[in-house]
């Protein structure tokens, strides 16, 4: 079965070809003038190093390991994220660190090292969902690049300091001794 192609009947003005061309030229010239008098900041193009795209809420970018107000890491080294990770890029080593115990409202376990291989990570956010302590977040930094493979192995302190400047926190490189109980347990 053939398809009936509808023929468009052009008016005599359109068939001269000169008039439609002039119409088209007026459209392109309108665009030209509009762009000529628009400052670069207001154009559609985001000029990358100077301008950055504002990432939407819920964007899964670079990881952050969260900390308490006193600077102690929230992570309790439960290995849930390591288990959940489909790319198997997280490797944790746990350590015992406190004389104070859980009944007194303190954690007694923390990661001695927390490594994420950013070359393997697929930014799926499964670690964030698996975490029972809300200790690992994926936030909006999408500029993850380096000149060599080694600098893409993010350690515990890299992950804790990722957003320190953006949040106005100070960079830390040592675990502070916890002083304040994390929670009160009703016995």
């Amino acid at each position, binding site marked *: 079965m053939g398809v009936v192609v509808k023929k468009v009947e052009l008016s005599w003005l359109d068939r001269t070809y*000169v008039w439609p*061309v002039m119409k*088209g*030229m007026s*459209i*392109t*010239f309108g*665009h*030209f003038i509009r*762009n*000529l008098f628009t400052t*670069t900041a207001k*154009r*559609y*193009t985001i*000029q990358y190093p100077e301008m950055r795209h504002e990432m939407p809420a819920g964007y899964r970018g670079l990881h952050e390991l969260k900390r308490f107000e006193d600077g102690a890491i929230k992570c309790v080294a439960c290995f849930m994220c390591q288990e959940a990770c489909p790319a198997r890029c997280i490797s944790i080593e746990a350590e015992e660190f406190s004389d104070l115990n859980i009944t007194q409202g303190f954690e007694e376990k923390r990661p001695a090292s927390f490594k994420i291989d950013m070359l393997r990570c697929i930014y799926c956010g499964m670690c964030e969902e698996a975490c029972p302590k809300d200790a690992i977040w994926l936030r909006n930094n999408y500029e993850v690049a380096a000149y060599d493979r080694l600098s893409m192995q993010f350690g515990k302190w890299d992950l804790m300091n990722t957003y320190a400047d953006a949040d106005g926190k100070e960079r830390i490189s040592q675990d502070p001794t916890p002083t304040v109980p994390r929670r009160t347990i009703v016995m």
Partner: protein
Amino acid sequence: MDKLASLLHTTPAIAWMVVKVIIVFAGVMTLAAIWTWVERRGSAMIQDRIGPNRAALFGKIRIIGLAQILADGIKMFFKEDLIPADANKRLFWIAPFLAFVPALIGFAVIPFGKSFVSGGVTYHLSVLDPGNGMGLLYPLAIGGMAVYGVLVAAWSSNNKWGILGGMRASATMVSYEIGLSLAVVTVFMTTGGYDPSEVIGAQGHLPWAWNIVRQPLGFIVFFTCMFAETNRLPFDFAEGESEIVAGFNTEFGSMKYSLLALAEYSHVMTASALIATLYFGGWQVPFVKDPTVMLSVACFLFKMLFFAWVFVWIRWTLPRFRYDQLMHLGWKVMLPLSMTNLVFHAWRMSQGH
């Protein structure tokens, strides 16, 4: 001029000639180079993009991306110059020059400003003085030669895409030449001479006496045919990227490619100068009866650059024609139209207008 001539141990006439040649050809080449940038920035503006604005002098002075021309030029010079194994080497070397030289020397007869008298000697602002016996037939003849550049480039590179592009382009150029020539003949007829200074003088300084108002049909035909002549969109059959890779310059690289690209833009400049001379009164300044030399040069430059910009503008407005549509337009529309134009003006002249 006399001082310069005595300094160089030549006559003032020769010194003036050398100065003119340098100014005209260096000027046209510079404008052609700048126009590659105008094309890219202009197309970007038309398509709501930004275009090349990053290239900077010494990494600091950005000057709205104008350094891009320099960067491109340097890059082109230092790229490897490959010649395909099966190419005809001699023709492959000659082809860019065959394309570039006709595009440039067509400018020679066009007066780009008012003639002036200094120390009892008349200086003409065109490389070939008026009354040289060639007049505007010369750029037409040279324009016909431009097809060799494209064809030789296509043939010598021994590439099927190249040959297809070259064949299509040469067929286009040949079929549009006739309509173009007839439109120009009408101008010669109404002027009573084919010397560019006569054509300009006959048009006068009033815009409604220019040939665009007297022969609008001829202008449309001439303008359209100029697009085919310069191989620019909507008639760029030499290089239909979507159909035949890059067309006639598929195998060309480094400075050879650069020369072919420059040839196109030089051709655009020459074509714009021709349009300005034939239909827009050349260096005549509207409503100014006796302009100064500088003003006339500025006015000519303005007209020429405006039409060069129209070439860019049209390119980013219209899509490419289909080949059969192009042939249809050339033989069945443009040729009868310019014939009609010629006969109409011949009739008017016979009626004593």
